[in-house]
């Protein structure tokens, strides 16, 4: 069994860590009725997708790079202990610290201890999904530490007390008018009549507010897109430069990363970087790619006095050697959710936990248990678009199917579905019975259709007819007609051949 998040953290005041995944259906219902959300999701239909296609069209070797990236990650996962040990040794050699943590609780406590040791009052944060996963903000705030998100999107949802709804665009569900409202409510002492109409105005104001925080920061916490074993470096990519400031201006830099972020060499990281930004935002590279190797050296002009890496397992090692190992190749580019029609219909919050979209539908059950998140791998048409665009060629639909298998084995799904399938299999493995039953059903539906060609409703078919009419059969089944035809033929040909 995978370890679930510690209860203490799940019950934190940040709503995200109480999973609402079991209520996916209700969440989706609400999301579909939420006009403002639907308007925001409408923008997603083009945006990232078009930019990604353009970026890929401009790079003929993209497919080859994908293969290379997959190979690098597969090799690393097969030798994970080796590369993690090497990474640790190199961080230490550079004067940094590595903290191995098995779960959220340990990671949060470790981070808290570093804060306490430094007498810290405030914590700056770069955008990090892993910190969402471990419920870090809620945990630190409970300990009376002030936590400030420095990524604009994260900052916006922090002000709105919401979880992110997308892994690279956390506030994608929010409109600029709503952001202006949050800013007016939070940024006191400013002219209440100031203009906050354009994204530029909002960005400028956020910058000003943020600047004060940057100079006062004790601790800067970031995630990591990569950990480089050969150099002991953590790497982050951002578009706002906030991550840079977070880790260089703070006295102490803590990078939180899960085990699978490690890659062997700098060269490997640059290979994967080439597919990452293109898949994510359609950029060739993100605006800032920052490499952190140890604390400030005597000759450095800036940099933190201390450098810590919190290396977190939190269920990853349990995925090794299972059907779900491939998921550990994920580089969190979000291409899968940008292209997912289900995500596009309901948005990220409906998924009910940290990671939405196809990658979340595979990862979430690994991290919080399939009994909590059974809807997620089920709510897919298996259209395969996610796998098509995933730069790391992760077979997402196949892994969702594996979760359905686990669920079926554990008798977690609806028993009506279970018996339905068994009954259907019974029929479908008895050809004569099957022929008789389908022949009858076809005729019956035909009669019910009464020449209208389709039915508006039908008992036990509510799931279908709630949305659309049910086309009725032509009348006889193909097999009935085929048999008749063959008989006629052989009669004409003068007996069976």
């Amino acid at each position: 069994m995978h370890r679930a998040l510690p209860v203490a953290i799940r019950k934190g005041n940040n709503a995200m860590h109480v999973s609402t995944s079991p209520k996916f259906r209700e969440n989706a219902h609400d999301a579909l009725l939420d006009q403002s959300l639907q308007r925001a999701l409408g923008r997603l239909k083009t945006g990232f997708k078009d930019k990604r296609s353009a970026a890929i069209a401009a790079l003929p070797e993209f497919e080859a790079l994908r293969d290379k990236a997959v190979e690098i990650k597969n090799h690393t996962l097969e030798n994970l202990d080796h590369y993690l040990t090497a990474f640790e040794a190199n961080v230490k050699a550079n004067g940094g610290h590595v903290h191995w943590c098995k779960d959220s609780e340990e990671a949060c406590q470790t981070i808290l201890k570093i804060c306490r040791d430094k007498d810290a009052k405030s914590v700056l944060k770069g955008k990090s999904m892993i910190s969402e996963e471990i419920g870090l903000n809620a945990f630190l705030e409970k300990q009376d530490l002030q936590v400030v998100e420095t990524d604009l999107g994260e900052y916006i949802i922090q002000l709105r007390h919401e979880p992110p709804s997308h892994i690279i665009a956390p506030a994608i569900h929010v409109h600029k008018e709503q952001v202006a409202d949050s800013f007016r409510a939070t940024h006191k002492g400013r002219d209440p009549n100031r203009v906050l109409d354009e994204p530029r105005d909002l960005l400028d104001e956020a910058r000003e507010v943020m600047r004060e925080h940057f100079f006062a920061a004790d601790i800067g916490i970031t995630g990591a897109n990569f950990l480089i074993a050969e150099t002991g470096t953590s790497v982050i990519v951002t578009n706002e430069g906030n991550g840079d400031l977070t880790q260089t201006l703070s006295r102490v830099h803590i990078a939180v990363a899960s085990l699978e972020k490690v890659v062997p060499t700098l060269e490997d990281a640059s290979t994967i970087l080439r597919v990452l930004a293109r898949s994510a935002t359609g950029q060739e590279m993100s605006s800032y790619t920052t490499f952190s190797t140890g604390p400030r050296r005597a000759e450095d002009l800036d940099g933190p006095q201390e450098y810590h890496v919190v290396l977190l397992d939190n269920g990853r090692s349990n995925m090794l050697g299972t059907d779900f190992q491939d998921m550990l190749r994920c580089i969190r580019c979000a291409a899968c959710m940008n292209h997912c029609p289900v995500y596009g219909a309901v948005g990220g919050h409906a998924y009910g936990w940290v990671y939405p979209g196809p990658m979340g539908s595979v990862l979430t059950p690994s991290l919080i248990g399939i009994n909590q998140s059974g809807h997620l791998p089920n709510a897919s048409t298996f259209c395969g678009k996610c796998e098509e665009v995933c730069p790391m060629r992760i077979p997402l639909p196949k892994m969702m199917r594996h979760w359905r298998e686990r669920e079926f084995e554990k008798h977690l799904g609806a028993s009506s579905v279970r018996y339905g399938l068994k009954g259907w299999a019974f029929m479908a493995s008895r050809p004569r019975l099957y022929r008789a039953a389908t022949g009858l059903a076809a005729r019956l539906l035909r009669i019910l259709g009464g020449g209208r060609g389709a039915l508006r409703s039908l008992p036990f078919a509510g799931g279908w007819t709630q949305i659309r009419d049910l086309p009725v059969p032509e009348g006889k089944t193909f097999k009935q007609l085929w048999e008749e035809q063959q008989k006629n033929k052989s009669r004409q040909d003068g007996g069976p051949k």
Partner: protein
Amino acid sequence: MTSPIPPVRPRVGLFVTCLVDMFRPTVGFSAVKLLEDAGCIVDMPMDQTCCGQPAFNSGDRDSAKKVARPLIAMFAGYDYVVAPSGSCAGMISKHFPELFADEPAILADVKALSAKTHELVSFLTDIMQVKTLNVQFDGTVTYHDSCSGLRELGVKQQPRALLQTVSGLAIREMKEPETCCGFGGTFCVKYPEISGKMVGDKTADIAATGATTLLAGDLGCLMNMAGKLRREGSDIEVRHVAEILAGMTDHAPGIAGRDPEGK
């Protein structure tokens, strides 16, 4: 994949699919006509039922195997197995080896079956080297790329190439022909609201083309889209692409279409 010299009078076992069998035999007969015209000897093993996909995709491997297993022997004697569906052909050609991976005794047979199984239209163009068809259809059509055919089997240009040879026919592409219609097998009844949003977006895209006929290569998707169009009161006619290619549109009104007056 593409063999320049088509096989001579290959024996083709038609896998008619459970939906075509029960709902739309015209598609099956269109397939037979197209295959025979292309020089194949077509047979349809009577004991076939379904490929097992509904169970496979629901996580019920045992039921999937139970339904799938008989097909291995049933189709062993044919040169090719052809289905008028990318989804069912994909199940047999891409997923059977995975489904039976834990049964080494029959795996070779399973792989042989998988290797010779094809979706109808791509079989006609890629294996039988059919380049043109001598049929007529007066109308503007739009073509939806069903997901499994498109992504598992690479069916994309083949139907368009053949449709272009139909005289009187014009193709008008929708904005997002490759976006899923929201059918997804049991998905459409398990999550009707999400499916409803997806198929609603799809029918809007279809209507915006101004085409009078919607075509696709998979009956599941077609029934979903036809049912939605009908619910919306649209009179766009919905057909399986094989019906047009075989010139058999007079055999039945469009999917979910009313019977002609006086019939």
